[in-house]
């Protein structure tokens, strides 16, 4: 059947002969836009103009939010207590379940052939992090540990023991690492930072509260002793009753073993470098003092 005989064909013919779209031809669908009431101009926008009858409401003199007419308000009558101290400064870690991670891998949104870190997860819209709300990264929780079956090189900020076991059982590698708030903002939104032309900063080390967590091998901390991490892997396998697959003979062994330097924010990019996005170049400093400050790191 020729194209012009179908409904779509006839529509195309009509549309081809219509005049060009200009500002004069545009208008919204009927019922899409409702006119706003002009207050103070008679009939139902007028009379009291939606302000009510007399009193503080009409006169615009209502008291502050939370005021209860003189009764001690809720926010003052509830006493402060020690266990709430500094609650708004505590680090928060939005959870990432293994089930969600498996779902993202199944739908092709995150690539298990590359190391999965927070940038990849945010780019595929798998997690939502708000560094300004005291989020310090993500925590891996073990919901979905029984259905998880992907081999990944994962980097999170906190991980539960069962989740670590689930990842390692499938032949993957998991690391927990710390990002200070500035590095975290750069990590989750690399493009605005790289467009700014600032040199990549070096990641700060964790403070005294979090240092014990990241130097502990049972948490797979990035500052822990590699020998102890290996021992912890074996111990966890014994505890949960599985054998660690030998990943040394994997095709993707190089990718699975890739780790960031403790001062590095991005894979392959050293601190101190400036990225020129427009010309697709990287500018590396050569001054001795600058290099010493940024740590003379071999980028890998």
């Amino acid at each position: 059947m020729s194209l012009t005989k179908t409904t779509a064909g006839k529509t195309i013919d009509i549309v081809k002969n219509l005049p060009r779209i200009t500002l004069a031809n545009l208008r919204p669908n009927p019922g899409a836009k409702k006119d706003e009431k002009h207050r103070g101009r008679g009939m139902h926008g007028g009379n009291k103009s939606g302000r009510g009858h007399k009193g503080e409401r009409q006169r615009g003199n209502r008291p502050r939010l939370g005021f209860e007419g003189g009764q001690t308000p809720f926010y003052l009558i509830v006493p402060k207590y020690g266990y709430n101290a500094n609650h708004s400064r505590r680090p928060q870690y939005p959870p990432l379940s293994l089930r969600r991670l498996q779902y993202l891998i199944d739908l092709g949104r995150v690539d298990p052939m590359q190391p999965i870190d927070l940038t990849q997860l945010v780019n595929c819209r798998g997690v939502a992090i708000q560094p300004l709300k005291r989020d310090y990264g993500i925590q891996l929780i073990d919901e979905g540990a029984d259905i998880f079956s992907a081999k990944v090189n994962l980097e999170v900020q906190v991980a539960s023991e069962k989740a670590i076991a689930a990842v390692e059982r499938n032949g993957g590698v998991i690391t927990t690492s710390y990002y200070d708030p500035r590095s975290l903002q750069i990590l989750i939104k690399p493009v605005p930072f790289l467009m700014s032309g600032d040199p990549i900063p070096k990641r700060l080390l964790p403070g005294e509260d979090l240092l014990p967590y990241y130097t502990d091998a049972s948490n797979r901390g990035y500052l822990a002793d590699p020998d102890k991490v290996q021992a912890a892997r074996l111990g966890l396998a014994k505890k949960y009753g599985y054998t660690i697959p030998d990943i040394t003979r994997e095709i993707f062994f190089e990718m699975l073993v890739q780790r960031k330097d403790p001062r590095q924010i991005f894979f392959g990019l050293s601190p101190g470098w400036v990225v020129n996005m427009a010309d697709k170049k990287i500018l590396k400093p050569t001054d001795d003092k600058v290099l010493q400050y940024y740590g003379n790191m071999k980028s890998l």
Partner: protein
Amino acid sequence: MSASVRSMSWTVCRAARVAYRAFNPATRSLSTGACLRTESNPAEGSRGFIESTEEFRFVERLVPPSRIPTPPKHEGPAPSGWIPPSATPPSLPYMIRRSRMHNVPVYSDIKHGNQHSTLLRKIEGDIWALNKDVKEFLLGLTGKEPPTQVNEITGTIRIKGQFDKELKDWLLKKGF
């Protein structure tokens, strides 16, 4: 066993060992800073920096994709429970497309804490036939025929009650 353990110990944590050495200040001087000074062009170095395009591929990895990727092929359900749409659309008078993120477009809603409803979106074809089938299915499930609201223009059906799991499974079984 011990040999493989030893080999694993060396190889698995090789990169971690590099990272550990880099972190430990006593050994930092041992790690080479050569990568940062490989370009030996004196004119460029005199400007205070060197230009390079080798590592730009790492920058390209950081840029988020602008399109939602198509899911890879799975035979049957994926490990996470996601079921791909059947290759040939089912031979029914109606069709229900997948959402942008490749999921079945059935959503549950609650208004004012007590008004439960289920929304079935992206319906094409004979929507009244689907309405009849949905009512039949829910009659068999609950014993009551739930009231539904059909919107022909937007291609949606709103059903009273929360049936999103059951309707999703029913549609997946049909092959949508």
